[in-house]
């Protein structure tokens, strides 16, 4: 059954927003954060209005309701990602999830001269923690290059880099190029050499169902806010045997069994890594978001997004001076279309597009090694999601063409 985009749009109050300059909002910055459906906003509001209380602490009614809602959300979210609640550690987002893998697993299990493989395509969140771990432990960090003609990972170089690797960290879908990496192949090859694998699914999860147990990765990092959930929450999905190898990352309240002046005994499982007051409202909101997303076939959603992205990229390439980085028509590519004009600087172009009501991202997208590989300091990026329409894309291309003609 085809998606009813107008009905989907009706779930997002913000999409009716008129900007201060009188232009109607066209939101194409979904790879930065998605908008939130009413059910997510209402679930969080209801928590604050009806049963706001701290979870896992007290025995009064509100505390019981808050605890139940927090754990029910864990159940919904873990089901959505095809795994058990025991394998889901709440974090503040994908960045904290990757830091948790670095400081909670790599710090306890890797030694001097061990090898971690990352790629040039990674977001800084999947580079900087490993650089820090490399400094702290004397670990070798290898970067797999991209082929700048096809905008895909150089898989021959990946296989060379894999030799002796203990950990492989790869982005599922590039936030800049929209390219989906062959993560199944990467996981299989990495496991064959005995390496554990972390997949950064911050951009992948909004575009396809990630079934953690079937995927086979040891760690998967996810942010809620890019998939209709609230900001401030995400998770690290961890295989049970990898979680058993982990030690504490942040310490303090909630993650302990017993504290004496002599020392502390920690909780086991995910509780060891969820320090302090949980992100209760955010977890409830994310739970509502995955329930909302569950009504759709994500293959249809992805097809809808890819149609808009491919059409937009093709049209952009007909505008003199515009270059597009990535190929939205590649199988699995997300709705991110990065582009650059050869004489209108990217920030200037973003301001000029904003005047037309079009919200796009500008900058290095927290992926400076990728920018270096592409030979550009920054790009503009239009990124589409479930509620965007071809009409919006047509209006966008029309405004972009007008801006390019007027300002060159």
């Amino acid at each position, binding site marked *: 059954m085809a998606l009813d985009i107008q009905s989907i749009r009706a779930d997002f109050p913000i999409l009716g927003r008129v900007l*201060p*300059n009188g232009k109607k909002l066209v939101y194409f910055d979904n790879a930065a954060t998605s908008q939130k459906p009413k059910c997510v906003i209402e679930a969080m509001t209801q928590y604050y209005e009806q049963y706001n209380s701290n979870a896992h602490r007290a025995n009064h009614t509100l505390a019981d309701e808050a605890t139940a809602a927090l754990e029910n959300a864990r159940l919904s979210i873990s089901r959505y990602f095809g795994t058990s609640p025991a394998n889901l550690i709440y974090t503040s987002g994908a960045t904290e999830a990757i830091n948790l893998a670095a400081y909670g697993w790599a710090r306890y299990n890797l030694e001097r001269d061990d090898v971690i493989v990352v790629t040039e395509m990674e977001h800084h969140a999947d580079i900087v923690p490993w650089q820090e771990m490399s400094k702290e432990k004397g670990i070798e960090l290898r970067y797999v290059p991209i082929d700048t003609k096809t905008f895909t990972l150089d898989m021959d170089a990946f296989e060379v880099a894999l030799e002796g690797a203990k950990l492989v960290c790869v982005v599922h879908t590039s936030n800049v190029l929209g390219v989906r990496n062959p993560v199944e192949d990467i996981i299989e090859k990495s496991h064959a050499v005995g390496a554990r694998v972390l997949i950064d699914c911050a951009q992948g999860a909004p575009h396809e169902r990630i079934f953690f147990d079937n995927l086979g990765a040891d760690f998967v990092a996810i942010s809620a806010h890019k998939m209709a959930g609230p900001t401030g929450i995400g998770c690290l999905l961890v295989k049970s045997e990898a979680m058993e190898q982990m030690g504490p990352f942040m310490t303090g309240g909630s993650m302990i069994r017993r504290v004496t002046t002599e020392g502390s005994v920690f909780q086991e499982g995910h509780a060891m890594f969820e320090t302090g007051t949980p992100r209760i409202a955010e977890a409830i909101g994310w739970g509502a978001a995955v329930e909302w997303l569950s009504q759709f076939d994500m293959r249809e959603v992805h097809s809808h997004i890819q149609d808009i992205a491919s059409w937009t990229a093709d049209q952009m390439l007909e505008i003199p001076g515009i270059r597009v980085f990535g190929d939205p028509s590649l199988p699995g590519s997300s709705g991110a279309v990065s582009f650059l004009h050869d004489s*209108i*600087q*990217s*920030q*200037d172009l*973003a*301001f*000029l597009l*904003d*005047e037309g009501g079009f919200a796009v991202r*500008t*900058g*290095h997208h927290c992926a400076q090694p990728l920018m270096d590989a592409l030979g550009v*300091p*920054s790009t503009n990026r239009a990124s589409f999601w479930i509620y965007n329409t071809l009409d919006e894309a047509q209006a966008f291309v029309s405004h972009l063409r007008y801006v390019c003609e*007027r*300002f060159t």
Partner: protein
Amino acid sequence: MRPKHLSLICDMCVSVSLECDGQIEESQSGGAIMTERQWPEHLDAVVEEFQGCFDAMERYELLFEYAKKNPSPLSEDEWTDANQVQGCQSRAHVVCSIDQNGHFQMRGGADAQIVQGLISITAMAVNGMSSTEVSNLSPKYVEAMGIRNSLTPSRANGFLNMFERIRSEAEKLG
């Protein structure tokens, strides 16, 4: 720190409203009327030129023209890390100094034309002032020009970061 203003006619007044679109602001305190300038007088013509634009696109077009006539450019070999203004989305560089007459001088360059245009206009504003006047300058003229996006307090805002850099250099040079 809340910016001070270029000239305070009445220093007895204790409250000043910053919500004003014009170059002259009046506020009343204890029966006394205070008038103060929001930007140097020689910028009035520039601000009026922008205010006369038909729409935002025309304002940006004008700003692109100001970018081309930067009165005190910075050669690209001076685009060094030390001179760089931190900002995610554009590369802007400024150099500030005091000339032989004791006047503040700035030179700047940016890859973004909108930031470059604002650098040009800011150079027109501050060059020749005392460093104290520069450190007390407010970026109100940009708001009055109708370049609204340039004043959002974002870490990625090239102009605002550049403006703060100039003010902080002026404080040091003073």
